[in-house]
């Protein structure tokens, strides 16, 4: 099977390489991942290292992005914060991708009553505003990194379920699925080898865009004080803490904001590039 998908991915990669914005997004994300992994080596100071002689100092040679109200180095905190943001983004999307994908695939493939029950549950969840739902879940679970990821993950399950169901439905009706059955393939084989790979493109795109969304969501919850607790540096939390100094020390909110923006932009560029690259109908 590994050989089989190879050529498809290779073609997609060739197409992706021609998209400069997507490559830019990819490079930015690569740097971010690198920074997150080697935060201990890269950051000039520790994320809770305080220097009371240097409270709310603007950018300087010693503190490239300045210091916050406890005299902590903003750059170091941003570097450590990338760990949390990336972690939240990936884990939350993994939760919604697997849960939503499974629900959607089952509903779409088997149809009938199963479909009806599962999708109505999803509809009910969709009717609740996502931000409220996330707040309720993280309030119920209590603050903390893991609970934050679960809360963010749960809120986007219905979107993945609907997307998956729609793709499965459209693929299921195609003649090559009937041809596969006429070939003697079993249901499991049809779902795994014929339907899922054909649904991959929209799912991958949705996942990339959802990582951006999840990071934003996590930042929102932290901003509201429900996410990662101080002194752990979370970009949203840093924004929140910088609020009182918006007029006097704008850099305190600008840099975390920029970090969030650049990450999300990079993810969106990559997501769009992947969407174009993975469409098998788009030749060359």
């Amino acid at each position, binding site marked *: 099977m590994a050989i089989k998908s190879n050529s*498809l991915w290779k073609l997609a990669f060739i197409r992706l390489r021609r998209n400069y914005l997507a490559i830019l997004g990819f490079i930015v994300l690569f740097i971010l991942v690198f920074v997150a992994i080697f935060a201990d080596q890269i950051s000039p100071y520790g994320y809770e290292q305080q220097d009371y002689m240097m409270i709310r100092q603007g950018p300087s040679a010693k503190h490239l992005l300045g210091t916050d109200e406890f005299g902590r180095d903003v750059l170091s905190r941003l570097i450590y914060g990338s760990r949390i943001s990336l972690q939240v983004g990936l884990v939350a999307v993994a939760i919604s991708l697997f849960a939503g994908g499974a629900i959607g695939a089952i509903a779409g493939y088997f149809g009938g009553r199963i479909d009806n029950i599962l999708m109505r549950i999803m509809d009910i969840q969709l009717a609740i505003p996502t931000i409220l739902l996330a707040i309720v879940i993280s309030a119920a679970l209590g603050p903390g990194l893991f609970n934050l990821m679960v809360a963010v993950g749960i809120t986007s399950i219905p979107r993945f379920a609907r997307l998956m169901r729609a793709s499965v439905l459209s693929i299921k009706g195609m003649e090559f699925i009937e041809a596969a059955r006429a*070939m*003697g393939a079993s249901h499991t084989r049809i779902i795994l080898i014929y339907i899922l790979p054909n649904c991959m493109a929209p799912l991958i795109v949705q996942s990339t865009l959802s990582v951006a969304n999840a990071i934003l969501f996590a930042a929102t919850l932290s901003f509201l004080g429900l996410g990662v607790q101080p002194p752990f540096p979370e970009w949203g939390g840093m924004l929140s803490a910088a609020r009182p100094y918006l007029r006097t020390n704008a850099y305190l909110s600008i840099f975390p904001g920029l970090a969030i923006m650049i990450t999300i932009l990079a993810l969106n560029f990559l997501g769009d590039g992947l969407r174009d690259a993975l469409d*098998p109908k788009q030749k060359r």
Partner: protein
Amino acid sequence: MSDKNTQAPLLDIRDLSIRFNTDSGVVHAVNHLNLSLQKGKALGFVGETGAGKTTTALAILHLIQSPPGEITSGEILFEGQDILRMTEAERRDIRGNKIAMIFQDPMTSLNPIMTVEDQIMEVVSLHTDAKGEELRNRAHEMLQMVGIRPERGKEFPDQFSGGMRQRVGIAIALACRPTLLIADEPTTALDVTIQAQVIDLIKHLQKMVETSLLLITHDLGIVAEICDEVAIMYAGRVVEYSDLRQLYTKPMHPYTQGLFNAVPRLDSEPGGRLAVIQGLTPDPTDLPEGCSFSPRCPYVQDICRQEALGLKEYEPGHFVDCHFPLGMNGGLGA
């Protein structure tokens, strides 16, 4: 039907009825259909759109969507075993291996994200123990057989033209050397020159692989080209069944005669009108009593409206479902 033959038929469909339970009523797609096919022979299955040809073909593979489809009676004997009574695992073993199918539209019947050689390898790997290089060689051999350079096996279906894709479809169908090949209007989606190529290819390969062929079509010309026997289907029934020569020289059912009259010929008057069969095929949710062709039949008698006959052997090997077959004693018309 083939009691007189010494050899048991490869495929024997007896009294098959299929209906679809839809919101707008029960569709009687196939009604008490009888049909048999000898090993190595080619049977043409002719009828209008909606006559139940494809439904019958899918029933042979037991691929009718259920619900809404439902097989209400009959048996489908393949090599003496009833397909309808097999377990799903046994049927999977037969599909693609002993009974293979060529689909109507080559643009949609291939998996768009698998290379064509992988798709041929897929069916071989499902039914044999072959692995790795052996599989690949087999796929290349099949591609060669249908006239595609094996190097092109690494390409995806969207890099092929319609005719080439249909060749790939044929390669997939024949990869396991099936004993029965079902071709569901294999040329309908192709243009005329490619049609001729594909038909020649099917004809040639059918002889080479020694498979039986069930060719579904509404093109009487194609049937004349490759088939040994013909069954004419109307409103879910076989109305006439015989060998090719007999049926083409002496059609006995008024519907068959109507079909032949509706085909343009080289010696037809330019600008002249073709003879059409009056009326439309009956609504399958509301079939007429008696003979289902009676509302359109130019020779209809009272008994036709009251009593269905079923296939009857009027001449040796020539079965007709008509009270008054054409050209017979007591028959009417030509």
